[in-house]
């Protein structure tokens, strides 16, 4: 039981630097996903300004080394980009409802 | 470029003289620090008045007395300004011997916005477009026969559009 305890402590002790290192790669993954989604929104000619703002915030946080914030912002950017994609696709038909006939 | 400087220093001398006389005469209601420039009739730019933050000080600095509301002063101002940067305001009055008309916006950084000198023979009515920082009372003060009359109206001001 004791060895397990020590091992886990070591793990936790040793982990943060690994965690920080891996969260940089996590950030890169999250940021790339957000950028890809926003690119797709661009191809549908329907990007949102808030997506771009979240991407900038993510990059700024990453530059400052705050990867948790950077990942959070990237996730937010991805969500916003996905919402703008959904908006573009659903509006393809939905606009007719408002049309004056 | 030098002329405006000594023009201001001339004004300062004028004010100081004014302050001296006021101190002697001991008019109670004028706070000592705000010695009034002489009646607005002189042609110097009322620098002090335009620096005053609130309305009462600006009126005191400009005219050296307080105004009383009068229905003979008709202030025309919008209810909701279409935009705070261009608010059309105008005034007309049936008072006679009008020598000066001034517009003040209490909520602006400096209350005094404009002060017009009305020589004899000029109709006591002015229209202009002013800037307003936020919803505020707009007051017009008319100096007629040496006495001050005023009218006040609230004008609502907000930004427009959905904000971005």
């Amino acid at each position, binding site marked *: 039981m004791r060895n397990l305890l020590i091992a886990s402590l070591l793990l936790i002790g040793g982990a943060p630097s690994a965690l920080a290192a891996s969260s940089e790669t996590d950030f890169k993954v999250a940021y790339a996903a957000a950028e890809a989604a926003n690119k797709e929104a661009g191809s549908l000619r329907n990007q949102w300004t808030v997506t771009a703002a979240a991407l900038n915030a993510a990059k700024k946080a990453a530059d400052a080394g705050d990867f948790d914030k950077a990942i959070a912002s990237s996730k937010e950017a991805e969500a916003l980009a996905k919402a703008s994609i959904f908006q573009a696709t659903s509006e393809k038909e939905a606009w007719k409802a408002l049309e004056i006939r | 470029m030098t002329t405006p400087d000594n023009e201001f220093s001339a004004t300062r001398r004028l004010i100081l003289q004014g302050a001296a006389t006021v101190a002697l005469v001991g008019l109670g209601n004028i706070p000592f620090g705000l010695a009034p420039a002489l009646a607005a009739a002189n042609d110097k730019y009322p620098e002090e008045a335009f620096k005053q933050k609130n309305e009462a000080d600006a009126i005191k600095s400009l005219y050296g007395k307080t105004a009383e509301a009068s229905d003979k002063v008709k202030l025309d101002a919008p209810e909701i300004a279409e935009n705070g940067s*261009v608010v059309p305001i105008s005034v007309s009055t049936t008072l006679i011997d009008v020598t000066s008309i001034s517009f003040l916006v209490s909520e602006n950084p400096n209350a005094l916005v404009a002060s017009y000198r009305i020589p004899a023979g000029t109709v006591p009515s002015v229209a202009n477009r002013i800037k307003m920082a936020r919803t505020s009372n707009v007051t017009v003060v008319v100096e007629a026969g040496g006495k001050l009359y005023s009218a006040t109206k609230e004008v609502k001001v907000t930004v427009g559009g959905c904000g971005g």
Partner: protein
Amino acid sequence: MRMRSAIHFASAAIALALAFAAVLPGVAADTIDPVADARAFRKFFTDKFPKVKLEDFVNGPYSMDEDLHRQWEEKEQFPPYEFSLEMGKEMFSKPFKNGKSYEDCFPNRGIGVRQNYPYFDDKEGKVVTLELALNRCREANGEPPFSYVKDEMAALTAYMAFTSRGKPFDIKIPNDPRALAAYQNGKEYFYTRRGQLNFSCATCHVQSPGERIRAEVLAPALGILNAMPIYRSEWSGMGTTSRRFTTCNSQIRGVPFNPQDDEYRNVEYYLSYVSNGLPISGPGARP
């Protein structure tokens, strides 16, 4: 037995009817009928605002609110776009370095022609707006193009609009499938929701004209471009149709396109066409 078959028969009939109904509007929407659209568009607004005279729709918010109308009348006595108009007039006939001027690029030397813009250019197969034509005239004569959003472009379009004041909008859609497609694309843009606020042009200018959006009163879509270019107190300066489109986009948190991208040219084509018959009133003053 007969009861069940009757039910069967009834449900089949209903299903058939529903299917047919669903097809019908589908069919109607596919054929593009600008003339019917324009008639319906005008009727929608004249029904919604019976007291507003047809030609007064071009005054936008000022026809929707008495207090605003008075403020506008005061401004119109000596309008803030006066300087831009004079600059435009001066620039319009000043020759380029090669001796030509804008007058050589436009029919009737550019006087009283604004109401025909935008038009469909069959050579290019696209809509050409007044701002685009002005910049193309400059480039054709070896001059650098102006910004599409304000200053010189606003001054030039202000002068051209001024020379057309009172002339009804006269936008033509040639019998060319590409023109109909551009018109339809413009209509679709007008009704499509965008931006995080999820508004379309129609959300504000069809569903709620006359109502307030904070301090501003929303203009009806009918005649909404007739006063362009406009001096907006908000900008404390002049702005062209392009400036209005791009700022509207960013206000609803949609990323704007570049001025004169196809979408903007087409929506201007649609909006101008459905306002045919209403007088040009530019340059205008707006809140």
